[in-house]
């Protein structure tokens, strides 16, 4: 009897389930899903191919995305997690919540990058951005900067991913001498902010000569504001990279749809949206090339990147070193 009732229930529910459009839930950071971010265009483009709806669930930044995922665990409602960077991917992998990628999309990253679990969708080089009308001879290296009287604003590695990126940058460039670099940089640092936007806001207000941001930051001012006064300084040591990735959760009940989304994310249509919405380089250069204005940006000759395993292993000690040296 019971099974008969159950069968009846299934029969009556089945047409409803079929009529309902599947919803793909993407957990990402705020500025990706914002109206002016890449999220809306990518969702719209994907929805035209998938007969589904895309819903974004957001957290403040990449680190907040991971922390939210860790809170949700296997019960997460998300199908896709998008917006972690390579300093976070090892912690993310360690949660065991991710499923391997169905396919490896080709990418044009300046360093070889493949990962069985995470698909890169954009990347950028960290850089110090300055006002070229006020600063005519920018420093040529981190050491140069440390020896100068220039004032900089940086982000706190304990609360901001760019802040952590700078700590990794100094580590990747100077290894065991990193403590000395921080010691020398200490008198250049006006202040440390909890987040990127606070640091950038302080810089735009004239509180510092340079701010830790990305080589692509001047493109925003040039393209969106027709303002060519911002430049990024090219450093001899090379520039540390931030690679942003997306992955699929093993708990997702829509594995095929999730795969489809990741394939779309790597497609030319989605990648063309990235440069002028996320102000980063797309993982795969669009067929039509990068938007006008991007050719004016500096192209670091050397890219620095610690492997995600090394970054995770060294993160704690590197942040403690940063804290110790700058607290003196």
């Amino acid at each position, binding site marked *: 009897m019971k099974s008969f009732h159950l069968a009846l229930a299934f029969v009556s529910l089945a047409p409803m389930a079929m009529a309902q459009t599947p919803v793909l839930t993407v957990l990402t950071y*705020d*500025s990706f*899903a*914002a*109206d*002016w*971010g890449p999220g809306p265009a990518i969702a719209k483009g994907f929805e035209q191919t998938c007969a589904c709806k895309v*819903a*974004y*669930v*957001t*957290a*403040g*930044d990449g*680190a*907040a995305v*991971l*922390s*939210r995922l*860790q*809170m*949700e665990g296997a*019960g997460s409602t998300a199908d896709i997690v998008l917006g972690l960077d390579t300093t976070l991917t090892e*912690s993310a992998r360690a949660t065991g919540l991710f499923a391997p990628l169905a396919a490896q999309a080709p990418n044009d990253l300046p360093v070889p990058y493949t990962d069985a679990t995470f698909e890169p969708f954009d990347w950028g080089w960290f850089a110090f951005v300055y006002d070229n009308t006020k600063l005519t001879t920018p420093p040529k290296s981190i050491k140069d900067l440390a020896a100068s009287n220039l004032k900089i604003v940086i982000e*706190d*590695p*304990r*609360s901001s991913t760019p802040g952590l990126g700078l700590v990794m940058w100094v580590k990747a460039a100077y290894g065991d001498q990193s403590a000395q670099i921080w010691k020398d940089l*200490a008198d250049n*640092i*006006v*202040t*440390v*902010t*909890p*987040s*990127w*936007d*606070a640091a*950038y*806001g*302080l810089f*735009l*207000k*004239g*509180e*510092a000569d340079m701010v830790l941001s990305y080589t692509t*930051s001047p493109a*925003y*001012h040039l393209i*969106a504001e027709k303002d060519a006064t911002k430049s990024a300084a090219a450093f001899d040591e090379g520039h540390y990279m931030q690679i942003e990735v997306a992955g699929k959760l093993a708990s997702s009940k829509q594995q095929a749809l999730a795969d489809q989304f990741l394939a779309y994310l790597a497609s030319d249509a989605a990648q063309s949206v990235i440069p002028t919405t996320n*102000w980063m380089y797309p993982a795969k250069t669009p067929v039509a090339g990068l938007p006008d204005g991007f050719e004016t940006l500096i192209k670091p000759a050397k890219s620095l990147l610690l492997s995600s395993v090394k970054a995770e292993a060294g993160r*704690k000690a590197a*942040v*403690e070193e*940063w*804290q110790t040296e*700058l*607290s*003196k």
Partner: protein
Amino acid sequence: MANRTVQIRAWALSGGIAALVLGTALALAVQAKGVGLHPADWAALRFTLMQSALSTLLSCLLAMPVARALARCTFWGRRALIVLMGAPFLLPVIVAVLGLLSLYGRNGLLNQMFQALGLPTVTIYGLHGVVLAHVFFNLPLATRMLLNGWHAIPAERFRLAQTLGLPSTFRHIELPMLAAVLPGVGLSIFLVCLTSFVVALTLGGGPAATTLELAIYQALRFDFDPGHAALLAGVQFAVCAVAVSLAARFTTVEGLGLGLDRAPVGQKAHWVDVPVLALAALFLILPLVAVVADGLPALLHLPALVWQAALRSAVMALVAAGLSVTAALILVQAKVAGAPLVEGAAMLPLATSGLVLGTGLFVLSRAFVSPEALALPVTVLVNALMALPFVFRLLLPQVRDLHRNYDRLAQTLGLSGGARLRWLTLPRLARPLGLGAGLAAALSMGDLGVVALFAGQDQATLPLVVQRLSGAYRMDQAAAAALVLVMASFALFALCDIGGRRAAP
């Protein structure tokens, strides 16, 4: 009978608050991997205590002459000045910091003046900058609370003092009032500063200016160690408990009898009042002018979603204010009627870290419903909770007076329940209730708080929109949206505050 209902309601409410505040911390504590504070945590505790104590001391010291001057001076625009001077407390933190930097920053007005005069420039970054910002935030709060104290002194006392020829009205009339009000003021400010982190880090100049709240943030974000976050939250609770009991110990209850609501007389303005008020107004209002100037250019080019978010935030703020004032009134009445522990429950939300509260609620609630479904109600609830300590503090001295002076009369008349609320409590408390509601509404309006943890795409509050705009290089629009936020907070505040004063006898 009526008294018992009041007590039961207050107990239930206190229990609810304690469950919410402590339960969320506990939800994280159960995930603890190990117990023990790191050396960096001790450093954070030391810095937190030092900056909170200094900020409290300075805010209180400065608030006394300002409130006194406001109490005894009458001039055109006095009310407007009082309302305007309350504004800094309502500013979103990062907006206020940028406003302060327009004046005291490296490129600020002050340094530009120094440079023009050939003087060496000064830096705001460091402990002094943190304290300066905290005084900027809290001086208005302290001034308002003290001013209410001065207003509550019946004019008859000053007359009596004159008649008796007392040599110092300060010593015999004002000092007892200060002794009754100041500990509560100091406590509120101390607890506000205790959980500061954006101000402390941004103006502190580096990681030496790390507060406990930042350590909590780090524990939750990058280390994903909820247990450690809960432990740090526990330390914050302990500091709060010590502060609450110290304040309670030093609070004296004054009692010189009631008056007939005559206009204050006998307190003549002193020449000192003019420079005191001028300096305070400059200190508090100039950064606001900078905020307005920064926001104006892009004000007309804001995307529609800013206005939608503003409306959403305003409605939420009013609901939160209603909840907060109701809860505070219930708790204060019980406290005055002698219920123990109620005060602790009312102050508890100040000690909690917003991040711990939000994360704990997230962990607890997501077993039942999706976080997005709860985003707005939870934000309202948390905002009401966060404003409760201030509203409680504002009401406490006046409810105490009301109880002492009118309780017997009300009992004699058989005035109880709804009638007592309608004819005695609400009219007598209209002033602090209005101020409290305004404060709660404005604080809720400006609070980024937990909504960032819960909100889905289409549920953004105005502070969240400000953050999203500035996170996408749109600093001009962010500044304009922040201006909208400030104006809306201010309008809500002024609406309630002025409404309360109109309703007062």
